[in-house]
């Protein structure tokens, strides 16, 4: 036997383990983000996701500051999910925010589906309805915002009772006309000015600090601290106006949440595709965010029920929202602070309620 043949006959070693491959890939993504690679995890000290039971006290004890908190020491998302999130974060950081010039608007088009349950003599029935709207956020956020809300439509029903319930209920406002609202600083219906927009500039950009902040402001909410953190992230991203650096930080924060996995490699939402990242909340439900790992774009979010709700079977997507953000030179004119309530001649009682004339 020739010497080279002999050398080539030495048995091939085993292929690298999935764990080693995932660690290597994570280290690479860390380097792309120009951060030191994480130390190899020591076995046995990893704490799994905080369970809902008894988490309250732990959270309260740990969330005193954003720096020392729940984030970063309990492991994190599954490697595949972390990779997608790292990749999206890198792409987001390198993307450029839309520039809204003086007089222009950030135009946020949202399509959303929600579930509704109605009770009648014949029992309780659930169905899904869809609402589309366009929000025009002015360059100066203290100026007038404009909000065009299209009539809700039935999206999905589940049997005759569900169908009947959908037909009997008119959502949001009567009739089939668009509702047009206009309010300074986005204080529609007398609500809080620019709710969920106001703190976008001040939220931490460091993923660990951001996640600790999220745990802190959500103490006691949701099914579990980790699940609620992902819900919080999804709710912020769906505003469609999160700046690129914060979007990247949200993705990185999601990668630090234990139990977060890739739930669908190629998920389609309202005609756009991305990777679905989510977290099962026991047998209750699963919040997912759908992102494009190559461009860093946020496609949307959706919630899957893991338990049957009336006629809606387990595994159904019970709500979703998809958002597209662009820059508009103008916003529709007209509209009032209270929209349809003003059209109907209602008079605000100054406490968030209104007296409307009856026919």
């Amino acid at each position, binding site marked *: *036997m*020739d*010497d*080279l*043949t*002999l*050398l*080539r*006959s*030495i*048995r*091939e*070693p*085993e*292929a*690298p*383990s999935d764990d*080693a*491959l995932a*660690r*290597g*890939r994570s*280290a*690479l*993504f860390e*380097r*792309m983000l120009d951060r030191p*690679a994480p130390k190899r995890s020591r076995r046995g000290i990893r704490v799994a996701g905080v369970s809902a039971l008894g988490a309250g006290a732990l959270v309260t004890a740990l969330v005193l500051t954003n720096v020392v908190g729940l984030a970063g020491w309990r492991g994190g998302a599954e490697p595949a999910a972390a*990779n997608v999130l*790292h*990749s999206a974060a*890198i*792409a987001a950081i*390198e993307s450029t925010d839309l520039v809204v010039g003086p007089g222009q608007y950030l135009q946020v088009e949202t399509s959303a589906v929600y579930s509704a349950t109605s009770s009648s003599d014949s029992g309780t029935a659930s169905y899904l309805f869809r609402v589309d709207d366009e929000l025009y956020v002015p360059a100066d956020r203290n100026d007038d915002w404009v909000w065009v809300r299209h009539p809700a439509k039935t999206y999905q029903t589940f049997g005759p009772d569900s169908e009947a319930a959908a037909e009997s209920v008119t959502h949001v406002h009567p009739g089939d006309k668009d509702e047009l609202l206009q309010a300074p600083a986005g204080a529609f219906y007398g609500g809080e000015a620019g709710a969920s927009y106001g703190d976008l500039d001040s939220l931490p950009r460091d993923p660990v600090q951001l996640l600790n902040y999220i745990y802190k402001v959500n103490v006691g909410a949701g099914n579990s601290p980790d699940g609620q953190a992902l819900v919080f992230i999804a709710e912020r991203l769906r505003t469609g106006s999160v700046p690129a650096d914060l979007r990247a930080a949200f993705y990185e924060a999601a990668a630090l949440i234990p139990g977060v996995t890739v739930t669908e490699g190629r998920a389609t939402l309202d005609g756009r595709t991305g990777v679905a990242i989510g977290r099962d909340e026991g047998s209750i439900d699963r919040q997912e965010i759908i992102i494009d*790992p*190559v461009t860093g774009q946020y496609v949307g979010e959706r919630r899957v029920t893991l338990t049957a709700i009336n006629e809606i079977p387990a595994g159904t997507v019970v709500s979703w929202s998809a958002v597209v953000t662009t820059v508009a030179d103008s916003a529709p004119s007209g509209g009032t602070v209270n929209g349809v309530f003003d059209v109907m001649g209602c008079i605000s009682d100054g406490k968030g309620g209104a007296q409307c004339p009856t026919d």
Partner: protein
Amino acid sequence: MSSDSDIIRRSRENPATFSELYDRHAATIHRYAARRAGATTADDIMSETFLVAFERRADFELERDDARPWLYGIATTLLRKHARLEARAWKGIVASGAAALDHDAIEAMASRVDAEVAIRALGTAIRRMPARDRDALLLYAWGDLDYEGVAQALDIPIGTVRSRLNRARRTLRAMAGRPTPTEEVEHGRLDPASQHP
């Protein structure tokens, strides 16, 4: 399918793209490193190779479609830091004797004893040869590179690859106690470099 150089070109604009190169070649680099220095070291070499490659992606010569020689070269340099582990791995191969070989290889030998003798001679020769000859030999034999590929990996002229491989193989044969043929014959592989001396 996009070529390696396409991926590297795109990664200069969009770094995340570089992960495609990892997904494509990480296991290959791991196999090479694991053969030379054991599985545990290979985990680190694999990871480090791509970190170094990522940082040096601007240096990659884009006219080369295949990035493997470049990656092998980086891995080979990193392996130098693990010379002691590599020596130990070779001792392990020698110690396991015929068991270190593919079943087919043992079958091809006249006897199991021959296999034991051959593997011992091989292990001893490889441990004793100069590192530069060993690198060329193992890239050629295990990295599945041709002369041109080895030259790219080690960043040396093809003529130097040829002389290092000749010397390495003379060492192997001397250790195996066999006569040295006067002329090199390539086995089972087309060597494009030999057609353009």
